[in-house]
């Protein structure tokens, strides 16, 4: 099993690094490849089972886009084959049609999934989040300088229960296309969502997946879930 972590030196804001660190502990048998920004992604020339991107600054988002422009067909091919792409924070915006800057300039994105993002700098959008993916309750937090728009129902990842969705008032959060999971939830998404982590492991073919420190992970999750279900301030 081969998992590529793309550009970990720049896609690592807000605790996102913990996702692959924890996943490595959950999947000791897997090979994790960390590709720096100075190198081409391995998934372009090799078969991989999963690709991970974490949150990044706006300038680094543009830097990544410039690296991946022209590689859209390969990304589509991998997604058609069922390869998992997990993208946390603002990183999934590169998969949309374009990113609109506050001055109106549009940056062409990869066009893999039909939606667009719009930056709101200097307005920071902060919110706790509670939602549902299938029968899994998802918890987390978003903190970003952008929103996403025109995500079709078929491409929505999580249904919003409480907190900020893809944009203000939107009832869905993030995008899903085949096994591409893109979410504005950032930081230790997999650490904080043990049900989803087990689901990803099963998608990777692991039978009866067991998490690292499973009991502690579920305890922290259940405490947070109960807290988020109470009447607390989300935004």
């Amino acid at each position, binding site marked *: 099993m081969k998992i590529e972590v793309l550009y970990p*030196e*720049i896609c*690592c*804001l*807000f*605790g*996102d*690094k*913990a996702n692959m*660190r*924890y996943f490595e*502990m959950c999947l000791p048998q897997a090979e994790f490849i960390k590709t*720096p*920004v*100075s190198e081409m992604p391995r998934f372009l020339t090799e078969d991989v089972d999963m690709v991970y991107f974490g949150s990044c*600054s*706006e*300038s*680094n988002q543009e*830097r990544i886009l410039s690296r991946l422009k022209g590689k859209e067909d390969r990304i589509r091919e991998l997604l058609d084959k069922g390869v998992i792409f997990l993208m946390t924070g603002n990183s999934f915006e590169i998969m949309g049609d374009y990113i609109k800057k506050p001055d109106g300039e549009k940056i062409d994105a990869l066009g893999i999934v039909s939606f667009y993002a719009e930056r709101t*700098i*200097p307005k*920071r959008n*902060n919110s*706790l989040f509670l939602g549902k993916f299938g029968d899994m309750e998802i918890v987390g*937090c978003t*903190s970003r*300088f952008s929103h996403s728009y025109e995500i079709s129902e078929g491409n929505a990842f999580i249904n919003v229960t409480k907190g900020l969705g893809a944009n203000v008032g939107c009832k869905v959060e993030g995008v899903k296309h085949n096994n591409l999971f893109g979410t504005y939830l*950032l*930081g*230790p998404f997999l*650490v*904080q969502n043990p049900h989803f982590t087990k689901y990803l492991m099963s998608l990777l073919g692991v039978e009866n997946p067991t998490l*690292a*420190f499973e009991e*502690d*992970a579920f*305890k*922290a999750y259940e*405490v*947070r879930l109960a*807290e*988020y279900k109470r009447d*607390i*301030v*989300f935004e």
Partner: protein
Amino acid sequence: MGKIRYFIALWAAKLVYLLLRVLGRNATMYPGYIALKLCPDYLGRTKKSPHVICVTGTNGKTTTTNMIADILSECGMNIVSNRYGSNINTGVATALTHSVNVFGKPKIDALVLEVDERFSRLILPFIKPDYLVVTNLFRDSLKRNAHPEYIFSILDTYVPETTRLVLNADCLQSSQLLKKNERVYFGIDRLDTDVTECVNLINDFSICPVCDEKLEFNYLRYHHIGNAYCPKCGFKSFDAQYRLTNIDYENKTITVKHGDTEDVYPMVNRAIYNIYNELAAITVLSEFGADKEKVMAHMNSISVTQTRYKELKAGKTEVIRTMAKGQNSVSCSRTLDFVGNESGPRTVFIMVDDLFERRDSSEFMGWIYDADFEFLNSPDIRQIVVAGPRCFDYKLRLRIAGISEDVILCEEDEFKAVDIMDKDIDKLYLLHDTSTYDLACKVEEKIVTVFTQAQNAKGGEQ
């Protein structure tokens, strides 16, 4: 009209200050708030003192500002500082109110201001400081400060061109600021403890800003603090004009070289991040023209404020209460590094939850995965107490850091944790956030009582 509005604002702010003081309030922010409400350009209209020194950056602002203000006062200057107040625009407006008389004439020699880096756009263009010290730039609270590039862009846009900069040559991020401004750099020469590969989880300046190549480090101290170069394009760290060439921990001195002169100063605090703060203060005071002998003499009497660091005894146990700013992974990592590198058997009591968020919301815990809790993975650390509503998150974080479950005591109630923790220990490090300072003081009181009783009872049995 603007002038009348300004004077109404000034008098209102002075009156509000007096009233609040009569009511026993600190009055560090509200007078400035009133002034800015009545006169939005209050900061720009207030006549400035002959000298204005500002300090900003992610970490070390308060300590550095206090050192500068204390020493200038000791040198006989009449100064106003916002040391007990807010470092945002309202706090600065309050400080400015104190710096002028009722006729709006400056009545002091110098203003020494701590400025919040995110709010600097609302402050620096209007007060146009003579000197701006930037201690460093790191990632901080994600909700407020987003990421270091965002804060960098604010400072790079809003610092006036006339301001002379005092920058940290070892901070790869902040040293790149405002290339057009006059500047002087300070830095610490290679230390025995330095490395060339980052041991921290986070290094926000690991690739060359010119060509994206991985940077090489001549020495790396922590995170992106060090001396780097690009093996491909020639980009490199700036040279420091004020170089700390020796740290003598035994005699508690530091040696600073400027030009051909080397001077020995008393060391205010042994933590390396506080040595950086002291060096920043020495640099700006030297540039400002403060009497070197007086600076040296007064450094002896300076101490890091007790809200940040305090040592006391609980029976035979030495208790060290120290701040580990929550939601600030780098500041917290510095404290974890300090505690991890101390010697002897010890317990670490962690209570760094954000008290304000726990009242009506829930803290986002992503930052703990950027903080180096791995530094606590030491056989000499006999127990780690994680206390407060977020204790289960901390427990999981410690497990991911490789720390055995046997070492961890996880308890939601901080006071109950004191009752059930091990008390037969030489040293106890109590780590708290700024928001949990008052709570930490109460926990500390209980530690002193409970530990003393437990140790006396044990002594009696023997």
